[in-house]
């Protein structure tokens, strides 16, 4: 009996706050996260192992078996050149995921740096940055990217840079407002009284506190990036044929949709949808865990 109470008072000094469980454990308790992460993981596996996972060569044409509907041999049917749609969908995850990831990463890193500078330093940087954000917001994302690619010429690197640059001001705006909240905190005054320089305050004091916001922004933008890339591919400015790509495959095949060849369009479209939904589910759960 006594051993329960015998714990000296000093043992309870550590307040048992909400942070008792680490964030990733809280995430794993959410069904939405589990479902979203599972779908995402599936596509990542496809992107990494691509050809190893695909039952057939996604590039192999079979002119004897064109336009076949879904069957045991071709689960998602074949396209106009007789290529296996299922294999093309699995392998097509690679290009879109790689481009989306790196484009969003570029946008997040650049946007966070710009947002920190705008929010913490203020002044001219904030004014110029603010106008830049407004300018980008006023233009439709795909059109901007489209114009840029026409000017520079399509390549994977171009798409990454274009989408990254388009995201930069958007992410900067969100990070800036989070930094403005932090600026009100007294720990920044304390840092100034310790004679810390501006870059130390921005990157060591402020940045860790806005990282949750950055993380959420990254996942939100990843979903948008998937859409943007698929749209660019659809318009013919993304991944070039014959590399399997969802947007490009829809673009090539939607013309025969009225003829009843729905599978060539539907399955790549479902792939895009599932990926975007998965990312949104993950984003939602991360946001909720951070807010709780």
């Amino acid at each position, binding site marked *: 009996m006594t051993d329960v*109470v015998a714990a000296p*008072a*000093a043992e*309870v000094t550590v307040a048992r706050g909400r942070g008792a469980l680490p964030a990733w454990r809280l995430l794993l308790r959410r069904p939405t996260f589990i479902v979203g992460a599972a779908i995402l993981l599936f596509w990542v596996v496809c992107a990494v192992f691509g050809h190893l996972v695909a039952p057939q060569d996604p590039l192999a044409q079979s002119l004897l078996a064109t336009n076949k509907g879904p069957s045991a041999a071709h689960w998602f049917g074949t396209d106009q050149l007789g290529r296996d749609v299922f294999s093309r969908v699995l392998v097509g995850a690679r290009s879109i995921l790689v481009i989306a990831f790196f484009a969003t990463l570029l946008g997040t890193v650049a946007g966070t740096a710009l947002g920190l500078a705008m929010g913490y330093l203020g002044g001219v940087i904030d004014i110029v940055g603010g106008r830049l954000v407004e300018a980008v917001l006023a233009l439709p994302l795909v059109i901007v990217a489209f114009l840029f690619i026409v000017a520079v010429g399509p390549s994977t690197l171009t798409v990454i840079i274009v989408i990254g640059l388009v995201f930069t001001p958007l992410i900067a705006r969100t990070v800036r407002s989070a930094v403005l909240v932090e600026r009100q905190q*007294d*720990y920044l005054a304390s840092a100034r*009284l310790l004679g810390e320089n501006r870059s130390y305050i921005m990157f060591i004091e402020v940045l860790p506190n806005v990282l949750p916001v950055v993380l959420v922004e990254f996942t939100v933008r990843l979903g948008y990036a998937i859409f943007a890339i698929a749209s660019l591919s659809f318009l013919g400015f993304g991944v070039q044929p014959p590399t399997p790509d969802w947007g490009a495959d829809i673009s090539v095949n939607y013309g025969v949709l009225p003829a009843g060849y729905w599978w060539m369009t539907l399955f790549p479209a479902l792939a895009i949808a599932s990926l975007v939904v998965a990312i949104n589910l993950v984003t939602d759960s991360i946001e909720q865990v951070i807010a709780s």
Partner: protein
Amino acid sequence: MTATETAAAGSVDDLTPTLQVEHLEVTHRVRGQDRRALRDVSFQIGRRESYGLVGESGSGKSTVALALTRYLPRNGRVSGGRISINGQDPLAMDAAALRELRARTVSMVYQEPGKALNPSIRVGRQVAEVYEVAGFDGSAAQDKAEAMLRTVQISDPGRVMGLYPHQISGGMAQRVVIAMALAAEPSLLILDEPTTALDATVEAEVLDLVAALREDFGASVLFISHNLAVIAKMCDRVGVLYAGELLEEGPAEQVFQEPRHPYTVGLLRCIPRRGQRKDAGRLDTIPGFLPPPGHTLPGCVFAPRCPIAEERCREARPPAFPVGPARSSRCYFHDAASDLPTNAPPDIQLPATRDAAEPVVTLQHLSKTFTHGGESVRALVGVNLSLERGETLGLVGESGSGKTTLARALLGLIAPDEGSVVDLDGSALAAQARRRPREQLKALQIVFQNPDSALNRRHTVRRLISRPLSRLAGLSGARLQERLMDLVRSVRLEERHLSLRPSQLSGGLKQRVAIARAFGGGPRIVVCDEPTSALDVSVQAAILNLLADLQAKEQVTYMFISHDLGVVRYLSDRIAVLYLGKIMELGPAETVFAGPHHPYTEALLSAVPSIDGQRAERIRLQGEIPSAADPPSGCVFHTRCPRRLPTGVCETSDPPLAEVAPGHLMSCHIPIDQLTILQRTEQDGD
């Protein structure tokens, strides 16, 4: 009215208590586990009685209020016991009856008046709505609302009714909320920390109002507060709540004069009393911490922290012993409680004689004007001050008086106006901290009010405390580690705290980390900006003791800002009273408190309720501090001054800050002799 008559009036008569709570138990379900928030709480409030519920944060005070009106959060439920309001059981009510109960029988007033009013609806509309719910038609409801606002002493109700909540001050908003609460003529009025967000002068007005209205309306009051003095002033009976249990209850005066539970005794000893000072009469503290929520202590909840606890206290929960008429105490040793051994640290030796002329910092003509949309706000107007080595200068005044601006200008966090001079050891300091060399930065540090904001929540305690050691003291390696451990020990933290982050520490421990950081560089002056006002009283006492110890050891100068005059008096050697950016009075602490004082100081002192209820409440300030954007002419205080001279000199000319006694300066047109007479006569009259 005779007993038979009242009995005939129905079930709700003068004999039925307004509120009866029996063995109330509330549990919260957190992460799939039930945590008990309240256990076996029983009390009752008679007709027209005022009952105070006092306790520290986490004691479950607000949970009681929420349970009474069934406003518990979704994961909370009443898991045992009985509640009866006017003989009715809210726990058994359906939705319609519950709505009726909340609309007519019970009213609540919360801490933040700003949050209780709808920001997009005019004040008059919101008050009138209460009457419309009660069945009055539009214009009658408007008239009633206007009359009600006049009852809560709003002098111009017609105008106020047309305003939106953001256009009225906090004190005014709380009056409006009280008006709305009383409009339904409730039998029970629940006030949950109603004045905690308000300035002391405004608090005093609101408390006076509540006391007066209680007589008129005949409502019973449940008054919830962490402030013992407020409870002592307002309540007939009091219950002391700790970790969800009612440890002691009884008539307020008896409980505070002759506490019979070790927790109550300890709590009362934590508060600086009149005459208690940092060098003699250290504050008692309650060691240890509140048991964590959901604890399963089989015995007395206070036993782990109780100096007189014995084996049986830890094994079996003490029943409520009757210790007098209508008094009870849940302690086996209620007879010995008042002789509780003290836990105060030994007295400290302050430097016996300070050299009078050794100012560390001198402020000359310190002014600060903020510009807001073309309007200039004069937050500080030509302040002259000097701080001596090893002394504590207390800075008091209402919010908006310029205390924090003064501190921030001294530290270089805001640049004062041109012409302001801040000297450290006779050489001028740069206006901005950024431009000050390391030696100057080192000299001036601060402890902020809110450690949650002052400590970077992503950094570990080790990093937080080490940083000034490397940045300011220039230490590294083994010498840094050695000094770090010294510092950690001197603020009474432990080595295991070093790897934690602020969110894993309690409020008091966080403030210790902030103090350690401020002392890390070996400062000459530490600004303490309300360092204890976010803390519970038992923690506050420990922090005040710590600050006194550190001062004695390091010979550091404090600029101590607080709205709590008891705390300021305990720690300060000299006091500066600020009003609208000007010094009204400056002098040795005891002189300023003993009087004769400046009328503003007098008003501040009158506003503070005291536990023993001894202090004469002489004068009250009307209204709130005027806007610094448009300060009054002449003496800035004349608009609210209760002792304004009839000659009109106060309105036209600004009195200089003149020495009225050695070291005692005052800015008032009334000659000191006359002030002495005025203030003494009224004291005698009480």
